[in-house]
């Protein structure tokens, strides 16, 4: 599956507009990181926009104001997202279920207001003109194709890490916690630490996606920090299939594709359509596209 994804990624820019593909890959990584938490640890975060945005701002600040190379900018943004994840995670895991969702949403709104107020974010205008720069001081990223292959490598790296995590003993314990937290506790697992680690990992990879996006589009803005962005990650995961490895990637593809296609034709009705997709997903196919397809295949019904 990994090889298939990599091959598709290598061929795609010669068939499809690379800028669209880069947006897709950034959001696919975002959704996959989000799914690590929702699909495998059973924790619904409504605040992932915070990690996405803060990382984008930090990366932009490092590259634009301090003149860092893009890889350092991305590394810095991701590191700050990880720290923020540790902070939010240690607060949010004190409650579970519905409260967890409300707490993460409120904390992300706190970050949103801070982004509005801090002068270095550029407020309503956002941080514009972040230089793409030269990767390791060598590769010129202003070339779209070079940029694309860099994003592809970042995505595949992040995706591989998520894949490894899910199939590691750590991932199995996460699933156990999702299925039956009480039993996991009675088996002697330090449930809180597992949840926190999953949260931090998810926030870190979300940060990686956000920083990469900032380099690609040379922009970090308040839209990234808005709760709509958190909602988008939820929708991509739900639509593609939560708890599946490929689902969020497919979901991101559908949503980003829809947005690109619809933006010119229906304008601001996009929000209504996204909301309607939410409702339909929750009512009619909760397993998502990948989950439903897997369920159709009788041989694999118990697999994965």
């Amino acid at each position: 599956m990994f090889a298939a994804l990599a091959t598709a990624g290598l061929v795609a820019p010669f068939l499809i507009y690379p800028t669209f593909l880069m947006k897709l890959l950034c959001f696919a990584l975002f959704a996959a990181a989000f799914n690590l938490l929702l699909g495998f640890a059973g924790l619904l975060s409504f605040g992932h926009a915070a990690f996405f945005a803060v990382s984008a701002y930090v990366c932009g600040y490092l590259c634009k104001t301090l003149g860092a190379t893009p890889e350092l900018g991305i590394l810095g943004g991701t590191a700050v997202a990880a720290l923020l994840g540790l902070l939010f995670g240690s607060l949010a895991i004190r409650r579970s279920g519905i409260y967890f969702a409300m707490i993460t949403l409120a904390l992300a709104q706190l970050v949103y207001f801070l982004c509005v107020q801090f002068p270095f974010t550029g407020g309503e205008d956002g941080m514009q003109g972040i230089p793409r720069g030269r990767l390791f001081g060598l590769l010129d990223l202003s070339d779209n194709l070079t940029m694309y292959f860099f994003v592809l490598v970042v995505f595949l790296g992040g995706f591989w890490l998520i894949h490894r995590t899910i199939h590691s003993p750590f991932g199995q314990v996460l699933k156990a916690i999702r299925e039956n937290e009480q039993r996991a506790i009675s088996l002697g697992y330090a449930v809180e630490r597992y949840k926190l680690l999953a949260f931090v990992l998810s926030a870190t990879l979300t940060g990686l996606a956000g920083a990469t996006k900032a380099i690609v589009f040379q922009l970090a803005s308040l839209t990234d920090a808005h709760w709509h962005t958190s909602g988008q990650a939820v929708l991509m995961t739900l639509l593609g299939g939560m708890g599946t490895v490929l689902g969020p990637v497919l979901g991101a593809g559908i949503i980003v594709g829809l947005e690109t296609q619809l933006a010119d034709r229906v304008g601001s009705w996009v929000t209504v359509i996204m909301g309607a997709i939410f409702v339909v997903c929750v009512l009619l196919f909760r397993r998502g596209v990948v989950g439903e397809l897997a369920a159709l295949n009788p041989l694999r019904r118990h697999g994965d």
Partner: protein
Amino acid sequence: MTSIFGKPAPLLFGQLLLGLINGSFYAVLSLGLAVIFGLLNVINFAHGAQYMIGAFLAWIGLTAFGVSYWEALVLAPLLVGLLGVLIERYLLRRLQGLDPLYGLLLTFGLALVAEGVFRNFYGISGQSYEVPEQLRGGVNLGFMFLPLYRGWVIVAALSMCGVVWYAIERTRLGATLRAATQRPDLVQALGINVPLLVTVTYAAGAALAGFAGVLAAPIFQVNPLMGSNLIIVVFAVVVIGGMGSIGGSILTGVGLGLVEALTKVYYSEASSVVIFLIMALVLLVRPAGLFGRQA
């Protein structure tokens, strides 16, 4: 001019009044959320949208059909409640027995739809709603000037909280409701139509949000985003207070409105985030919330 801790008194009292108003809205909305959550086990993300729809119905009623403020105060909540009946009957009911997160996701989708629809028709600039004739002007209380309408909003919102408290804690219907919150199966076995009770509860919660929306219309701009901005703060209020007790919800809501106002006077940069910071603090010290029971 008198000053209190270095701030002119009229400024302080003016902000405190606004804080009391915001606090009353937090109280009404968190109350509705808590009542719905108690029986349906669903966090109603659409609560903010229902508040926004209430405000818009009042505005549309006035501008298009000449419906007065007082009529809107009755009609808009009824219509929002009716919308609630449809949502519960045809959408939420299908999710019974599933993980409560699905209810949150469904109502989140509905909120997006509502927000998007109103944005398309009315833009995001906001419409202003005139203060009704009988409540224009104000009275001088000696230490401050009280605009009549603002006073009315506080009285109306807090009385509504009182009515809800009375209905739940002191009436037969309320007793049934509380029983059904604990053991719906037993209440059903005693011959009470629990599904109907669920529908009525959700509709009442939605109507409460619509009522708050009408009250808010003349104070804040009627704006498609007014609900989602408010509801996230209300979520934080709910986390701080816990959803265990009705009195607790009211107290937390009003208290936090006042704290927010004081922050605005003494350190205005932090006023938009102070409630979220308090939430973080409460989570550290008392994770179940001030009035919550540890699950």
